[in-house]
């Protein structure tokens, strides 16, 4: 793989850009691999990358039913933060956030990480107390956050109306080192690095069955034939339940559609990410100038990747009070992704009832920000067969033991 650099751009400019090679190969599947990862989204590719980088396992295939990064990795609002209340969550999300800081250098691929700062607005007394508690917890966890007053909110984001009639802004939880990154670039960067290590990324290859022998996984049936493996990692977000059903077990999760939308592009007006959980709306401005807006989840199981229309109205209505300028914007595009939501709104990185099959899912509405940390923890689980410190608390057994990582209270809806 040729390195991307200033010199490479100059070299290619001098020869009409004829020398750029494909970022990743598209091989046919081999008969057998050490590890097969189902799902070539951010989490799956990150798992593959850290398997190779941290554990030297490179006889790996990543199979994907659609196209690379075309699931939730390509359907989110690209927010990166780690201001969680519970220790296990803060640990893995902070690991992810710190890996994002050096990702462009690590992958030799510009993922456009922009630590522009994330603020979560407190618009009720209860939220003030909640966020002050989170800020205190974060201080113990070593995550840099602070609770700021309304004047500072207005200073950081002048387009916010802080004295709205129903929900005035009373303060905010501010994480200065949170931000956004280019979602496609994260998937593409990992894919390029994985392909360079000799791993096979097989797109347009849907898994239709999990073959087992004596309680252990032996491979997967796919639309491109049987692919054998010693270890199987399911990293398929919304389809986790479907994968589990194919392998003969069930999961404590349900799949729902989560929506997002963008406005027409406008001049730069907002250089932070703002989340308003009480009214349920969050917004940032992309590099193209579009206002990127996160919407709500449907209240019923859904695999359609669309989402219900009335949520768009509810989201925009909620934003107009806090951001009056939104009322004059035209909305450009809307899309939906299928997220797998667990009973305690925290992810599952775990062994399964099937031997040598591992699952990474249940990230719900907070998957993108966790990609590198999730891949790091999952790679350790797959390589060693036992979870490391980051993944230990996220096992499936926590639901039997009542040992929940209850973030539905801590993070509200905008997880």
């Amino acid at each position, binding site marked *: 793989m040729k390195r991307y650099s200033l010199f490479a751009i100059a070299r290619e400019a001098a020869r009409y850009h004829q020398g750029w090679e494909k970022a990743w190969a598209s091989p046919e599947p081999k008969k057998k691999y050490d590890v097969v990862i189902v799902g070539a989204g951010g989490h799956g590719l990150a798992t593959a990358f850290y398997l190779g980088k941290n554990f030297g396992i490179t006889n790996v295939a990543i199979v994907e039913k659609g196209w690379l990064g075309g699931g939730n990795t390509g359907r989110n609002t690209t927010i990166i933060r780690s201001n969680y209340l519970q220790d296990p969550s803060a640990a893995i999300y902070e690991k992810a956030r710190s890996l994002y800081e050096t990702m462009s250098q690590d992958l030799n691929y510009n993922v456009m990480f922009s630590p522009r700062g994330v603020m979560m607005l407190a618009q009720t007394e209860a939220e003030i107390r909640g966020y002050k508690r989170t800020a205190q917890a974060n201080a113990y966890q070593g995550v840099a956050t602070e609770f700021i007053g309304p004047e500072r909110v207005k200073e950081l984001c002048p387009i916010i109306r802080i004295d709205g009639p129903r929900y005035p802004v009373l303060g905010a939880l501010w994480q200065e080192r949170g931000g956004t990154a280019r979602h496609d670039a994260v998937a593409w960067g990992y894919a390029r690095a994985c392909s360079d290590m000799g791993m096979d990324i097989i797109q347009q290859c849907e898994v239709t069955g999990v073959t087992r022998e004596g309680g252990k996984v032996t491979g997967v049936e796919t639309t491109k034939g049987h692919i054998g493996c010693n270890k199987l990692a399911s990293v398929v977000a919304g389809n986790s339940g479907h994968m589990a059903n194919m392998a003969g077990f069930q999961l404590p999760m349900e799949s729902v559609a989560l929506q997002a939308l963008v406005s027409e592009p406008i001049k730069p007006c907002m250089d932070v990410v703002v989340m308003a959980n009480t009214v349920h709306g969050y917004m940032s401005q992309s590099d193209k100038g579009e206002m990127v807006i996160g919407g709500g989840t449907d209240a019923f199981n859904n695999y359609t990747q669309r989402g219900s229309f009335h949520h768009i109205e509810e989201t925009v209505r909620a934003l107009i009070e806090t951001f009056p300028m939104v009322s004059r914007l035209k909305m450009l595009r809307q899309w939906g992704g299928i997220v797998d939501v667990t009973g305690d709104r925290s992810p599952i990185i775990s062994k399964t009832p099937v031997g040598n099959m591992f699952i990474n899912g249940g990230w719900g509405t907070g998957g993108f920000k966790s990609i590198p940390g999730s891949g790091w923890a999952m790679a350790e689980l797959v390589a060693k067969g036992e979870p490391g410190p980051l993944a230990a608390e996220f096992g499936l057994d926590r*639901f039997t033991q009542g040992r929940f990582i209850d973030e539905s209270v801590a993070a509200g809806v905008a997880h």
Partner: protein
Amino acid sequence: MLTLECPCCGVRGEETEFHGGGEAHLKRFGPGSSDAEFETYLFTRENPKGVNFERWRHANGCGKWFHAARCTMTLEVFATYSAQTYEPPADVIAAIKAKRPEWEMPA
């Protein structure tokens, strides 16, 4: 947009008129059950890609609970039926089979 017909009052409405209540026909476990049974009752869900049985409440209507059989991939509603039953009635299963011949009732 999902549209449902309430079997209690017969009114057909869009989803904003209803409130989803999750998976239907859960077997309840309480005191004396094993940890695994209790976990299954509280958290483990069928979450099928296809035919799903679920509970709904006609929140902005007659206020009554009912059951629905719906496809999670197309949002097609096969039938809605009474909440006073432990399992889908035969006519509901027949209505599903008419449209999804390959579908089998999960064990």
